[in-house]
């Protein structure tokens, strides 16, 4: 067998867990070894050391782990370095160990150097978070470009017809889907914001400690219910109820799946978000603020309306916008509550659907990642992303403007 064959043949490649395990062991061993050596280098008198022995140990452990992880990431992104990655990792780990051990002396400030490594970890974590976001956007952008090379962007953004057809010639206008998304979200928020906010005000300002101690967890249980369960509730209870008692008697049609069903159930799901965030924020308003108002002869509700709520407003707006992003991204409740028919109508008792539902339905079943009917999912996703991003930027803007005014 020639050497070239050897590197290509995976049977002879070092399995990846070997260097990783070795690094972990080396780090642990390095910790104790370095600590011992540091103590020894000071002749056993640790007061002579620039740092505690355990900090020398930490420095060595981090010197082994961090460069190895960095090498792992770099190596993987270069395609595993033609199979040589495990050996490279072992080398890096060993080098980190040797260099850090070599550095040990009573004057070496291991404490500050370990600090530097920790800073590296923290920076890496934030870089990962940012890069992931950028990565998501780019992958979406790429597919979206593919889509728009096959489908006219004007038709996508401005056409009011959505009727995909896998044999081609589909109408893929986003407007009916956006309409459904916004309509359902609006109903959900109209329901959830007042209920959640008032519940929060009651809990934080009026309720006795005992009431609070069981009411708050009870509301928060709502947040733990999986959305599919809400969807079932919409499907078998709320939908038929609205149809039999509202839609049919009032002549709004006889569909159990409706914008109203999905909106209301989604509203219930959002109550704990709004209430528990607002509750925390209202509780953070200092008691001195309330005392000041009460001391001027204001009533409790005047105090709440004119002092507590304005002081808590930035946080409350944040909570509401967070709820709005949830509403826009919700899928399950819509499928089961509002159906999957793209339609534009003002009648809240008619079945409609949202962007997220259509993303799912375009990507399930037989998919051909070259056809516009599939690729449209990415354009839809990107549009949704831009909308929620805009919402968040707007929220930040409001909060900051308010802060500037009052801090």
């Amino acid at each position, binding site marked *: 067998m020639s050497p070239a064959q050897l590197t290509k043949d995976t049977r002879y490649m070092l399995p990846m867990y070997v260097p990783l395990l070795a690094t972990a062991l080396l780090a642990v061993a390095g910790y104790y070894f370095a600590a011992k050596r540091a103590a020894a280098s000071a002749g056993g008198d640790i007061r002579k050391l620039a740092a505690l022995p355990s900090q020398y140990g930490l420095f060595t452990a981090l010197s082994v782990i961090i460069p190895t992880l960095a090498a792992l990431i770099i190596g993987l992104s270069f395609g595993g370095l033609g199979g040589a990655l495990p050996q490279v990792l072992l080398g890096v780990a060993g080098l980190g160990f040797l260099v850090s051990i070599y550095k040990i002396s009573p004057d070496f400030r291991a404490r500050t150097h370990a600090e530097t490594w920790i800073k590296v970890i923290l920076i890496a974590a934030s870089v990962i978070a940012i890069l992931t976001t950028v990565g998501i956007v780019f992958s979406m952008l790429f597919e979206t470009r593919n889509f728009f090379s096959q489908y006219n962007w004007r038709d996508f953004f401005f056409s009011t017809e959505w009727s995909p057809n896998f044999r081609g010639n589909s109408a893929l206008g986003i407007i009916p889907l956006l309409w459904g998304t916004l309509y359902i979200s609006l109903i959900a928020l109209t329901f959830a914001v007042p209920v959640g906010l008032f519940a929060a005000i009651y809990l934080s300002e009026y309720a006795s400690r005992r009431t609070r101690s069981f009411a708050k967890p009870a509301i928060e249980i709502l947040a733990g219910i999986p959305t599919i369960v809400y969807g079932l509730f919409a499907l078998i209870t709320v939908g038929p109820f609205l149809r039999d008692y509202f839609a049919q008697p009032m002549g709004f049609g006889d569909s159990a799946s409706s914008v109203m069903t999905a909106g209301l159930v989604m509203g219930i799901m959002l109550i704990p978000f709004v209430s528990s965030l607002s509750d925390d924020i209202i509780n953070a308003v200092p008691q*001195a*603020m309330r*005392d*000041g108002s*009460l*001391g*001027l*002869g*204001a009533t409790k509700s005047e105090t709440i309306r004119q002092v507590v709520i304005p002081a808590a407003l930035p946080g409350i707006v944040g909570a509401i916008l967070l709820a709005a992003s949830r509403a826009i991204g919700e899928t399950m409740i819509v499928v089961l509550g509002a159906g999957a028919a793209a339609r534009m109508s003002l009648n809240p008792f008619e079945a409609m659907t949202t962007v997220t539902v259509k993303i799912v339905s375009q990507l399930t079943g037989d998919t051909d990642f070259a056809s516009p009917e599939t690729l449209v999912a990415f354009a839809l996703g990107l549009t949704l992303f831009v909308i929620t991003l805009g919402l968040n930027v707007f929220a930040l803007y409001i909060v900051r403007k308010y802060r500037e005014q*009052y801090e």
Partner: protein
Amino acid sequence: MKDTNMQNPKISAKNVQVYYGDNHAIKDVNVEIADKTVTAFIGPSGCGKSTFLRCLNRMNDTIDICRVTGEIKIDNEDIYDAKVDPVQLRAKVGMVFQKPNPFPKSIYDNVAYGPKIHGLARNKAELDEIVEKALRKAALWNEAKDRLNSPGTGLSGGQQQRLCIARAIATAPEVLLMDEPCSALDPIATAQVEELIDELRQSYSVVIVTHSMQQAARVSQKTAFFHLGNLVEYDDTTKIFTNPDDPRTESYISGRIG
């Protein structure tokens, strides 16, 4: 204790007891406070000065575990009577707190808050006038007149405290309660506030809690010394500081207890 009955007291308290749960914080306090006078409450930390002060405008009602018994009359009306609305009472008995607590609103709105709630102004011009007057009285007008619309929280600590005083007097109270109003202030701001208190005496009955003997001596005419929930001694300020009757008062003002 010496008999301190006066002719027409603004406030008179009889057998007042205050409990926080099981903690007996005020023990059988009897006191009469005159109109158009500054009365100082002094005493070691935790002796119940703030607690008693808060009884006078029923701010203690906002604390769940707090229970007040006895009788407190203002203008001969029992303020703990079921007929009395504590909200109305607090409009009449204003309060300034230890830490400046301006609302997150503009300077103007801070001062206009009380008058608006109580409908003291019929129109914007009247409201403007009330605000200006209150700010002038609180010696804040010159600093604030050009920035009435900027947030009250943007002022310095001393200015904030004067804003809180302006806010309290804009509501046109008859009694002003001040709980250590200068504890967060520098000497210059303290001097300004003290000067202000002296002026307020023309129109109000002022009760001030203070930890500074010098301040009590400078601003008040009457002084009450509290100790462990008891009102130990209540008399003319000069008398308390020169020739107190009770040995506990003597040792407190000379710095031996507290």
